[in-house]
């Protein structure tokens, strides 16, 4: 090993009640690519050292569980914890178990508590981790909670950033991490009331939608595959905060409304319950006073 001036930023990535879609979305990062994030100095002199990631890492079984124990004991305040998926809390967390300690299963809940308490900061990545998401949908069979709910009920005060989305856009995650490496944790006024970075979640979809002119002129799509505004087909753009219309998805190829598909409000607290039925028009009262 040569003398290295590179500063290593250890990252631990846990997966709870989720679908791995957030991890797969991160693989779609373009500039920097996921290869740059894993291998290169993503900021000159600084390298993201991804020590634990269930979908990516080479190891399995006890050796990787030891990575978690080592971080908790020897890296106090020195690692970034990324949580993907929500945290089942019913029956002391039995519904999601990751690894064993002396033949005793360790719950996701327990990992989030212990690793969360000792982390430098936590990114709740994706709507499940940020707000509960689909697994917390009514009737929430496993009593899934967001990281924020778990922390507040256990008086854990580690700095927390929510990056929702089902899945989140890779830029939202990479941009947030790069910002932490460059200038440190975001200040409170850089986050909105739901702890989302305003940089990505400051505006409503509706405010920047390319079909907005149709809304203003009252030209509405009557069935899917029609052009025009999708409001009457249930579009949740008027109540959803995200920069999808300007950032676009998958290397700028497209996005939901651009594809003629009504926004389903996947970045909002309460998704999926408060923004469904997905194809039912939201009531006019629910539309905020845009642009005022």
């Amino acid at each position, binding site marked *: 090993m040569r003398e*290295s001036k590179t500063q290593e930023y*250890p990252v631990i990535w846990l*997966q709870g009640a*989720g*679908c*791995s*879609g*957030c991890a797969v*979305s991160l*693989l*779609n990062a373009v500039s920097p*690519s996921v*290869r740059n994030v894993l*291998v290169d100095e993503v900021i000159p002199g600084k390298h993201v050292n991804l*020590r634990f990631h*269930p*979908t*990516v*890492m*080479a*190891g*399995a*079984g006890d050796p*990787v*569980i030891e990575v978690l124990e080592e971080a908790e004991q020897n890296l106090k305040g020195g690692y970034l914890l990324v949580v993907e998926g929500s945290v089942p809390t019913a*029956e002391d967390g*039995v*519904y*999601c*178990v*990751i690894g*064993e300690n002396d*033949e*005793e299963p360790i*719950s*996701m809940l327990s990992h989030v508590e212990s690793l969360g308490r000792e982390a430098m900061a936590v990114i709740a990545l994706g709507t499940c981790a940020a707000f509960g998401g*689909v697994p917390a*949908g009514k*009737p929430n*069979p*496993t009593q899934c909670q967001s990281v924020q709910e778990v922390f507040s009920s256990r008086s854990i005060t580690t700095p927390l950033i929510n990056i929702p989305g*089902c*899945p989140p856009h890779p830029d939202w995650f990479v941009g947030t991490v790069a910002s932490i490496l460059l200038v440190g944790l975001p200040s409170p006024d850089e986050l909105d009331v739901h702890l989302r970075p305003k940089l990505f979640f400051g505006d409503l979809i509706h405010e920047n939608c390319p079909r907005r002119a149709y809304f203003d002129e009252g030209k509405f799509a009557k*069935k*899917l*595959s029609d052009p025009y505004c999708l409001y009457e087909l249930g579009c949740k753009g008027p109540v959803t905060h995200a920069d999808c219309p300007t950032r676009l*998805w*998958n*290397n700028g*190829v497209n996005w*939901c409304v651009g*594809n*003629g*598909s009504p926004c*389903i409000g*996947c970045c909002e607290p309460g998704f999926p319950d408060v923004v*469904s*039925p*997905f*194809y039912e028009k939201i009531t006019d009262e629910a539309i905020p006073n845009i642009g005022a």
Partner: protein
Amino acid sequence: MGKIVIDPITRIEGHLKIEAVVDDGQVKEAYSSGTLFRGLEIILRGRDPRDAQRITQRICGVCPAIHATAATLNLDSAFGIADKIPDNGRIIRNLILGSNFIQSHVLHFYHLAALDYVDVTKVAHYEGNDPALNAVKDFIERGALGPFVPRYEGDYRLPDEIDQLATAHYLEALAARRKAHEMLAIFGGKMPHDMGIVPGGVTQPPTIDKIAAFLWRLNELRDFIDRVYIPDVLAVAENYPDYFEIGTGCGNLLAYGAFDLDGHEPDLLKRDRLLKSGTVSTDLKLGEVNAAKIAEEVKHSWYADVSTGRHPSQGMTEPQPDKEGAYSWLKSPRYGGQVYEVGPLARMVVAYAQGSPTVKEMVGSTLARFKASPAALFSVLGRHAARALECKVVADAMADWLLELKPGEPVYTEYTIPQESTGMGLVGGPRGALGHWVEVRDHKIANYQCVVPTTWNASPRDDKGQPGPIEQALTGTRVKDEDNPFEIVRIVRSFDPCLACAVHLVTPKGRSLGKFRVL
């Protein structure tokens, strides 16, 4: 007698634990357990049926497009429009699903499976000019090797130059699979969790610019499959030839078929599809799939025995967490009471036995190269090879479909949600046979059931005590080094398990952590 416990099994989708009882270096018994439960089927109850397409995609972020497909076929049939989807809609659905097949198969081989065979640290000795490999060399020299270390150590057999080439391809494959998602998003809006496939058709009409943008990404991916993916699978096979004999499994294969070539036959199992439906066993004798023969057994699952042996349309989930002799949250789907494996291997062997000219030639020449008989297909390497060859079959067909699109013609048909109805959607996904069933009452979902590929493959012992396909594939395996059980993880990963799919169904109650033990 010893026991190997691997928890978590990584580089799969979801949460899996494997326990293997080892005696004198050989696996005597194996048990697989899923360790995450979400209860999505319960969450679906009472919702607008159309929302099932959105919600069921969230079962799995690796292959959401197949849940979108199964859900829409299911809802099309429940809404009475299974035979009315416009050709443009049918073709675009195929293009979206095909893009995800390519994405999923490439991701599986390179990013989920390859690190069992490829030693990335060999790049430390690299002396060439490839900037990507030199970046990896710098990374290794810096010394912080996560996520590539820790890992099992010992059985890495590739020569240095192939390890280095395969590492370069691991990185190239990251870009290839990303491109497959970009291609998908042209008609799917975004990915993961595409927005385009909906009951009635798709949301996005085809235009010439979209067709061209799709075609040229597809051509790059076809080149990657031919030039990189298939040769790499063969290179691994050449250096690990014993894996043609390891992980045989149950010897029965089941395929529902995928990629509708005809949109007007309402019976999905009679519909002409690119990948055909069928059953086949080691004797290569073919059978027709009869959906009535699918049933789920629960003797070794934590459910009341009263629910055993039911067809999924009558599916029932009555948890009984303290049930004696149970050890899994997965039920045991069985076909005619027998154990069946699903996945690309099933589809390729069905096509081979049916005499499909393309598949017969590809599989035949692969077997000839290794001087192997068709029996060698039932193996770890057989599964990887079948996946790679299927990737080519699908990608090549997509190029033809793209040119069948007719800009200006409809992609969607309107419908009304009936007050009461039932539906069934059967289709083959990247990981194998997927079935969705719905019962609609008062225009809402009364019951929604999914029987997913990994539930077939990772199922526990059934009512007759027959172990599931992965359990059978592990049993009898020689483990050279119990501290580094490469054989076990290579067998498990050859099935490309997706545990988030497999264990989403259940509604467990009150199990204590201390009882979460198999032995």
